[in-house]
C-alpha cells in the first residue's frame, strides 16, 4: 500500500519555523537554535522513510526529534554551563545585528524567561505554544493529558511570577 506521507519538502516548509521557535525558546542564542534546528531536520530527513503518519502526526514526530536534539545539546559537555552563562548575560548575548533584527526585542526577553524555567516547565510551555495539543504534549513528555495541563498551568504561573519579578526589579 502506498504511503500517505506528504513530501518531505512540505513538512520542511510547514514546520521549520515552528521547530526553530521551539528550540529557540530552549537555548540562549539564535546560533545554537540554528545548529539544533539543522540537526533536527537532518535527522528527520534520514528517518523520513520510517515515519508512519498513521501512528503519529508530523508535528508530534518532529517535535519529538527536536526535543531529543535539544536535550542532547544540553547534555553535550560544557553546553549547560555555556547556556547558563548565556542566559545570565542574555541582554549582551546576541551581538549579531542581523540575528537581532530577526527577533522582536520584547519577545526575546520573554523567551529568556521561558528558557530559565525548570526543564519540564520550559518544555510544557514551549511545546504547547508551538501548536501542540495537550494530548501531544503529554505524549511527548511521557505523562497524561491532564498531567500535561497541570504542568503547563504551573509553568505559566511560574513564568508570570518571573516576568513580574523582573519588572519590579527594574522599577
Amino acid at each position, binding site marked *: 500500500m502506498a504511503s500517505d506521507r506528504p513530501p518531505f519538502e512540505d513538512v520542511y516548509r510547514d514546520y521549520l519555523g515552528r521547530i526553530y521557535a521551539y528550540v529557540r*525558546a530552549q537555548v540562549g542564542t539564535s546560533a545554537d537554535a540554528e545548529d539544533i*534546528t*539543522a540537526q533536527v531536520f537532518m535527522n528527520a530527513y*534520514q528517518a523520513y522513510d520510517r515515519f508512519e503518519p498513521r501512528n503519529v502526526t508530523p508535528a508530534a514526530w518532529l517535535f519529538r526529534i527536536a526535543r531529543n536534539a535539544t536535550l542532547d545539546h544540553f547534555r553535550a559537555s560544557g553546553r549547560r554551563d555555556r547556556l547558563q552563562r548565556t542566559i545570565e548575560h542574555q541582554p549582551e548575548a546576541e551581538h549579531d545585528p*542581523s540575528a537581532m533584527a530577526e*527577533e522582536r526585542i520584547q519577545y526575546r526577553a520573554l523567551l529568556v524567561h521561558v528558557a530559565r524555567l525548570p526543564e519540564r516547565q520550559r518544555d510544557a*510551555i514551549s511545546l504547547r*505554544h508551538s*501548536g501542540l495539543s495537550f494530548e501531544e504534549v503529554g505524549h511527548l513528555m511521557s505523562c497524561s493529558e491532564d498531567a500535561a495541563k497541570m504542568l503547563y498551568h504551573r509553568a505559566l504561573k511560574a513564568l508570570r511570577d518571573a516576568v513580574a519579578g523582573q519588572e519590579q526589579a527594574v522599577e
Partner: protein
Amino acid sequence: MSDDKEDLELQALQRELDDAFATTRPRRGYEDELWLRMQARRPLRTRLRDAIGSVGALFRQAPAIPLGAVAVLLMVVVGAGILLNSGLRLSPTHSSYAQGAQAPDLALSEFGKLPTPALHPGLVPAPVSNGPSASYSAALDQSNLYFGPATLRWTGQMPLQSVQAAVYRYAEPGASLADQFAASLGASSDKQVRSGTGFLGTYSGQAFILTVQPTEPQLPLEPYFNLAPTSPVTAGGADSRDAAAAFLGRYSLVPSWPNEVKVQQSNGHVLVQYLRSFQLPGGGVAYLVNWIGQRYGASVDINNGGITGASGPLPLNLDATTYRLISNDEAVRMALASTPASSQAIQPVPAVDLKSVELVYALAFAGGRGYYEPAYLFSGTFSYNGQTYTKRVLVPLVDPTLRS
C-alpha cells in the same frame, strides 16, 4: 490577587507567548541554506526519486527553495584539479580545474600509509531481513543496492594488464581558500547567509548565493561549493547540456578535468552531471565513485526550464604519487573475501555472481587530507522478492601493507 485578575494576567501572558512563538523565526536565508545542506547529504538516487515524486510541488512553489539543490549530492564533486602538467601543483583558483595530463612519476609511498576507501550504505536504505515492506519496495527501483552479506562468485573477465594509476591527495582547505574562490566568482562574505557550523564560508554575489562546505569525512565527500541563483535563470542554449555549460561558463566553472556529461530528466526536473574521471598513465580514464559506488561530479540543476543551482568540487591543489598496487588476481581474491559493508542482511544470504569490474577512483580521508585512490569496483545483481538488487564490492588497489 483575585482569581479573575489572575486569570486575566495569565490569559494575557498566553497571548504574548502565542505571539512570541509565532513570530520567532530563523533569519532570512536560513531555510534555503539548510535545505541545501540536507540535499548535499543525500545520495543521487534518493534525490532523483524524490524529484520525480514531488515535481508537482516544485511547479507550484517555483524556486523559493533552491530545490535545485535537489541534486547537490550528485553535484558534489571532487575537489579539484586532477593532474598536472608541470608538476602536480595546480593553482588554488578555480582555474585549477584545468585538466591535467598524465600522472607524474613520483617516489613510492610518498604520502605514507594511506587510509582505505570503502563502500557503505550511507543514507541508502537497505533491505530488511524479513523482506521489504510494500511501501518500501515501491520506493525502490531496479538499481537497488545491497550492502549486506552475500555469497560471492567471480564470473567475469579481468583485464589482462595490471593497473597503473597514481594516488592523488589534497589538504583540507581553510576559510581563506573558500574566500579566494568566492572572490574569483565575484561573491563576498555574507553574514545574512552565514551558518553556525558546517560551512567554510557563505557568500552572496550578483543574484546568487554561494556556499562552500568542507570535507564530510564520514562519507567521505570532498570540499565543494553550491551556487544558487536568487531566482531561477532561464536556461538558454539548444538543450539542457548547452544550458548547463552556458551557466557554468558564466562563472568560469566549466570543469576542465576529464568528465563525461550525463543528463537525467524526470518530469520537468533535469540534472546535468559532469562525471569526473582521472586520467591513467597508460591512456584512458577511471571514473570517481562515491561511497555507494556511484559516479559523481559537478552538476547543474534545471527545474521547469529554469536553472536553480550548480555544485562542484572546490578547486584545490592536488599532489600525486605512485604506490605499489596489487595484481588483478589478488584483487579478485580480495573481492570474494571482502567483508560486507552492512550487517543488514537478506535471508537466506543471497548468492551473487560478480560479473563486471571497473577501474575507479574512490576518496578516503584521514589526518586532514583527502586521497583519491585507484580501486576495482566489482558488481553483480540478484533477485529477491521480485526486486533486482545490485551488489557492489570495492577493492582498493594500493597494496594493503601500504594502507592503514
